[in-house]
């Protein structure tokens, strides 16, 4: 592999991994979501560092250029990460849906109860909690 692309690749991987660690440290990124990025960064770093590994894997996937092996795996990891995100987004959508439904129902029931309480105490607005 040409040394220039190797240096660039190694630098990018190191920057990515350190940045992800920093994001997790600052709590801008949850551990759960950092793992995919860390695995991607480390494996790409490993591929960029070790010539033997890169040659062996290039033979395995049938790549004629070593750089295309790097691109191939970079793309593959991105696809996996995107798919993982789609799954997470779907789960979150379902949670938001269920939460909204139950918030709507609970709010309605709260209003009904407040109305009933007002009728019992005969004082409009007595049951309402003071706004904080």
């Amino acid at each position, binding site marked *: 592999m040409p040394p220039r692309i190797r240096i660039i690749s190694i630098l990018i991987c190191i920057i990515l991994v350190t940045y992800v660690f920093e994001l997790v440290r600052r709590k801008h990124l949850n551990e759960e979501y950092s793992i995919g990025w860390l695995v991607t960064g480390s494996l790409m770093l490993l591929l960029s560092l070790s010539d033997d590994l890169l040659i062996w894997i290039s033979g395995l996937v049938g790549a004629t250029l070593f750089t295309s092996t790097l691109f191939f795996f970079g793309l593959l990891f991105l696809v996996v990460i995107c798919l993982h995100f789609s799954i997470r987004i779907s*789960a979150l959508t*379902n949670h938001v*849906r*269920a939460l*909204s*439904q*139950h*918030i*709507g*129902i609970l*709010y*309605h029931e709260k209003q009904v109860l407040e109305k009933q309480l007002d009728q019992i105490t005969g004082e409009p607005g007595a049951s309402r909690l003071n706004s904080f």
Partner: protein
Amino acid sequence: MTSPLETRIYAPEVSSSPSSCPPEEAPPKTLIVIPAFNEERNIGRVIRGVLEYVPSIPLLVVNDGSSDRTAKIAKESGAEVISLPCNLGYGVALQTGFIYALQRGYTVIVQMDGDGQHDPSHIPDLLRELRQGDNEVVIGSRFLHKDKYTTTLLRQLGMNIFSQLASIFCGQRVTDPTSGFQALKGRAIHLVASGFYPPDYPDADFLILLHRCGIGMREIPVKMHPNPENKSMHNGHRSVYYVVKMFLSIFVTLLRQKPQL
């Protein structure tokens, strides 16, 4: 690992063990559910119409995050209103009504649209058919009615394809799978409130799901008014999305395991 489909519903089990409480003795507790999104111009008329024909049945409007005065008008017209915090779509709003109904112990639900398409004079027909027949779902079909329902050619074609598909997979003739004018009871209510319910556009895929669960369904003729503002859910670029989505939804419904209710 539990399937994500099964984790959605928190409605308490309604205590209706068949041995202790035969369904004949308890009078059916009926609720009318109307999902509404930005229907300030129609919702008042719809509610007044319903109250005219079936004044004794409580009415629930599920306001699907409308940005207009839908909730206010519905409340003033005499309906209970549940407001969702954001716009989540027709199926989700409808499902909210069903979850609420289960929590409150309602045993029969009539669902209709808030845009005035459905004629409330048919509600007693739907309820009568539901009471007399063995079917747990009764659907009002505009195409069984003697009055012709006119719509654009493209929509007619789409409706035709999906009614054919629904007919094939349900093993019975289905003329109007897009009808949101339905009366449901028993297991059908639990199915709608469950995570198995297709939340975006519950049409043909819901009917196929019903069939796979062994729930009987029947159509009766109803008159439908053409949509006054032509503000259908299936217009414009959305109609392409709708068709693709419906094909996909039917396909995966057939691939999935039968829901255990």
